[in-house]
């Protein structure tokens, strides 16, 4: 079973987690000043990366906390996990084959 490293609880089986979409999407400070185009981009446009992707995950059957993860979408390998509000690590752990 795939193990995911929760920043609060440590390594846990994947079925305790749910995926929460792309990470690091900042809500526009003043939505009233956004054009429809900008607002639609914020709401709906997401990257579809082949490779390392920053995602939100939630340890729903554990501590209940959201956190961020760097995951390689081709190998499904988790390269790093970090708490919400932290910057993604610059040099994530190298994927092992």
């Amino acid at each position: 079973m795939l193990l995911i490293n929760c920043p609060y609880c440590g390594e846990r089986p994947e079925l305790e987690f749910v995926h929460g979409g792309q990470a690091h999407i900042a809500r526009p400070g003043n939505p009233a000043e956004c054009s429809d185009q900008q607002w639609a981009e914020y709401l709906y446009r997401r990257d579809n990366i082949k490779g390392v992707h920053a995602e939100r995950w939630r340890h729903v059957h554990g501590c209940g906390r959201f956190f961020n993860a760097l995951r390689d979408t081709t190998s499904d390998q988790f390269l790093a996990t970090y708490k919400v509000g932290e910057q993604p690590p610059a040099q994530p752990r190298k994927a092992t084959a």
Partner: protein
Amino acid sequence: MRDLSAARQAPYVAASPLVRPLPPLTRLLLRGGSDALAAALAALGLPFTEAACRAVSQSDRSALWLGPDERLLLAPQQQLIELTELLREALAGRAHCLVDVSHRQCALEVSGPQAAVVLNCGCPLDLDAHAFPVGMCTRTVLAKAEIVLWRSGERSFHVEVWRSFAAYVSKVLALAARELSP
């Protein structure tokens, strides 16, 4: 109040020497910042720790770590009013959320030398004494249901399960226990 779910689990549990239902408890779910949690636990006579997945106990009261801002408080059934009074005083003026979940959950004890093996039939956590020592607790999954698992002793586990899942969880555990019995 007659607990129908607990009644439904009885035949499965009765058939297994490893699994037994625990008497009703007072259960309070407390959420809040470190200051609120520390004040609440101090009022109950429990030490406060921020260590993840650790339960603290003092006489018949326990506080289980469920998240950085969440604790499950367990005490004998008759202490409900006493506990809420103590907590109301300790938490006055502090942002917090306190919910009485006594009737939402019921508890099972899985004990014996095979206890970890029985639980591992539905729970993928590493339950070896080194990876999951006495006093460790966590919310996790058992087969298709969510449980709170607490290692209360070297060979015994306290399982908190939502009432409507109780019959299912006890059946899974009793089935696993039957497979292992000689």
